[in-house]
């Protein structure tokens, strides 16, 4: 019997943690009990992108998404949709809009404007099924280079494509390939950097989980081009699903003769080993990663020598990020001209971003370079929730900076972002609304970098805590007038004198917020005020006596018994001393009677009343 429905169950980490497995199991059981298991096939895929909507099920040929599913919804979908052909409206993504768009074969706004190259298989095929990958032209690029191209031609093709490193720095990938290819010696290595560690970043994880063979194929092509017969994939232990799927993919590829000795019976040999990292952020820095691959403590090495001359085990090494490897097979199959036709002149191709923070459609997206931040946040991301205004977009994680709302029309490419004081980074994009305090955000990222500093060089080990101290002081209202100048001086010194990229870039979140939001820093230092009302020591919660109905909800909710009052006898009051400013009372108040006020305003009022 021919299959009539493909039911794709997203099992990316976000959906998996929302129990997509239970939904899959229930689906399977329901299909069997309705005798539909031959004509309807369940496929577990990698991340489909709209993580906010998870758990997600995508049904073909209709192409409709069921979202926010629970196992209890499964029976209705099977009986109504699979059996009788009636879509279950209440579970559709954007009912009835989704239905109309799906019927017209057009796309939902979230997908419109995206261009999936690297992620083309993610959420479309079963990552644990080698045949599905092959069906989607998998290993055809490897076959082509091995049978039709010389290693030099492959290097030239990657150079011509203009591909730049997707780990963040944007170094021309083809040039790296050329450097390693030109090295003499028989022992060379290829390395995939999967040590994704930025807060809010999940691009690499999603690709490794959703389409592991694409990365393996890219590495094998790289190995052939530069003359390496082995490679390492470095993934952190916090990514168990990516590790499981990679292991399985490597095993399948070996069994099929796509990895190992004599690949595709062409005489070329290439094999890949998996290295599991313990989760140190510094290991995302390439020389520290190579130390870790060798089994040593992950600390950076001075450069030069660069990895292209002396990398893993002193061999010339071609090291690139997961997403960079994910581009290779597409460039080989469709040609460098095609690749250059996407994106901008200096930054060709697409970029995968992990959208998070104060944005409606959090998730994984892929857009052509040159797309503006506004398109990313508003057209694809669906804008800011709860009617709030956008304040800034953070890119590049702890190594990047904040782009203020007035620059939202900046096209995303390596150079434009650098001009604004931030970096492309690996693809984490955190959207911040008007309630975010930029000083606090800078403190968050700096705290992260302090924690993750490996301690090898003094500027990073000793300088970052100094900066953090100053930020702690400012956010608690005890900043001094020369603190801003001192932050700049420290930041610039650490940037110039640190050994590796982590230290050099760690002051960026502070320097970029100082550049664009100096007013906010000044308000903290000069007036003891947090304009966004986010820094807890600078605010107090107050009850509006006129609005309070003495319902007792806030008093019951308060975890530190800071609220007093008697039911039915308004108003209640909050004692600022024990209050920890958790904001729970404000959330539960049904009468909108509890508000945040700046501590400084309250003190001022008290002084006036006293005098």
């Amino acid at each position, binding site marked *: 019997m*021919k299959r*009539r429905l493909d039911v*794709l169950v997203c099992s990316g980490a976000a959906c998996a943690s929302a129990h997509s497995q239970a939904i899959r199991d229930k689906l399977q059981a329901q299909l069997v009990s309705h005798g539909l298991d031959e004509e309807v096939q369940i496929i577990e895929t990698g991340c489909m992108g709209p993580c906010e909507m998870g758990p997600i099920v995508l049904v073909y040929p209709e192409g409709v998404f069921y979202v926010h599913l629970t196992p209890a919804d499964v029976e209705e979908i099977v009986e109504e949709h699979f059996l009788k*052909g009636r879509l279950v409206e209440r579970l559709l993504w954007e009912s009835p809009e989704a239905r109309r768009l799906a019927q017209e074969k057009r796309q939902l706004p979230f997908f419109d404007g995206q261009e999936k190259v690297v992620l083309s298989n993610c959420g479309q095929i079963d990552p644990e099924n080698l*045949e*599905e990958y092959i069906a989607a032209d998998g290993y*055809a690029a490897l076959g082509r280079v091995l049978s039709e191209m010389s290693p030099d031609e492959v290097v030239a093709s990657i150079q011509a494509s203009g591909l730049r490193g997707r780990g963040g720095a944007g170094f021309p990938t083809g040039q790296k390939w050329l450097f390693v290819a030109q090295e003499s010696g028989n022992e060379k290595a290829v390395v995939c950097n999967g040590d994704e560690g930025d807060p809010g970043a999940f691009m690499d994880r999603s690709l490794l989980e959703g389409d592991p063979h694409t990365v393996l194929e890219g590495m094998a092509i790289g190995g052939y081009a530069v003359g390496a017969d082995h490679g390492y994939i470095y993934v952190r232990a916090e990514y168990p699903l990516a590790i499981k799927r990679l292991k399985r993919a490597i095993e399948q590829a070996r069994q099929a003769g796509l990895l190992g000795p004599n690949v595709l019976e062409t005489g070329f040999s290439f094999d890949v080993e998996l290295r599991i990292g313990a989760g140190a952020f510094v290991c995302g820095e390439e020389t520290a990663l190579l130390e870790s691959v060798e089994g040593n403590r992950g600390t950076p090495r001075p450069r030069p020598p660069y990895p292209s001359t002396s990398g893993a085990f002193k061999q010339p090494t071609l090291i690139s990020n997961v997403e960079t490897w994910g581009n290779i097979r597409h460039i080989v199959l469709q040609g460098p001209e095609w690749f250059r036709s996407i994106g901008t002149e200096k930054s060709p191709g697409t970029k995968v971003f992990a959208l998070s923070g104060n944005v409606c459609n959090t998730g994984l997206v892929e857009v052509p370079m040159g797309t503006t931040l506004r398109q990313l946040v508003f057209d694809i991301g669906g804008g800011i929730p709860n009617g709030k205004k956008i304040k800034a977009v953070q890119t590049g994680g702890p190594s990047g900076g904040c782009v203020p709302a007035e620059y939202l029309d900046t096209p995303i490419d390596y150079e434009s972002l650098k001009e604004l004081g931030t970096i492309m980074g690996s693809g984490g994009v955190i959207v911040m609304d008007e309630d975010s305090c930029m000083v606090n955000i800078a403190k968050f990222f700096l705290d992260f970098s302090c924690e993750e500093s490996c301690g090898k060089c003094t500027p990073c080990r000793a300088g970052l805590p100094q900066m953090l101290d100053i930020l702690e002081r400012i956010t608690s209202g005890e900043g001094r007038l020369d603190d801003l100048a001192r932050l700049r001086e420290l930041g610039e010194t650490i940037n110039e004198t640190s050994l590796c990229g982590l230290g050099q870039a760690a002051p960026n979140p502070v320097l970029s917020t100082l550049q664009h939001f100096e007013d906010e820093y000044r308000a903290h230092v000069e007036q003891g005020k947090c304009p966004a009302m986010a820094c807890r020591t600078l605010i107090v919660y107050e009850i509006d006596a006129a609005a309070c109905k003495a319902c007792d909800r806030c008093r019951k909710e308060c975890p530190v018994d800071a609220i007093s009052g008697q039911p039915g006898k308004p108003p209640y009051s909050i004692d600022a001393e024990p209050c920890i400013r958790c904001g729970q009372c404000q959330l539960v108040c049904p009468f909108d009677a509890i508000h945040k006020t700046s501590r400084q305003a309250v003190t001022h009022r008290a002084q006036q009343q006293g005098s």
Partner: protein
Amino acid sequence: MKLEDLRKIRERASKDLNLRKGDARVRIVVGMGTSGIAAGARDVLAAFLDEIAKRDLTDVVVTQTGGRGLASSEPVVEIHVREKPIVVYGNVDRDRVGRIITEHVVNGQAIEEFVIEVREP
């Protein structure tokens, strides 16, 4: 595995991805409302799937819809051929399924005697 083997796997396996590509030449829509099911639409649907598998037709998908109100003519089946008017057949049974596949889906000739409606897409 040789290059040749890789090509063979791709040809065989890519048929399995057809459903997800959304570019089928023919869409067969079986009415599965209550009256359709009571009149044997489940069986008709299964017959289409068997027939398509038997002939290895890769550019045809089968979907369902609710009843359109033609209870007396159930099971009702619509044949959507790309860029052609939609042809609706009534009182479809297993025998008719075979003829619809050979004459209409494969050879492009609608079977006049079973047609109950022709409409623009």
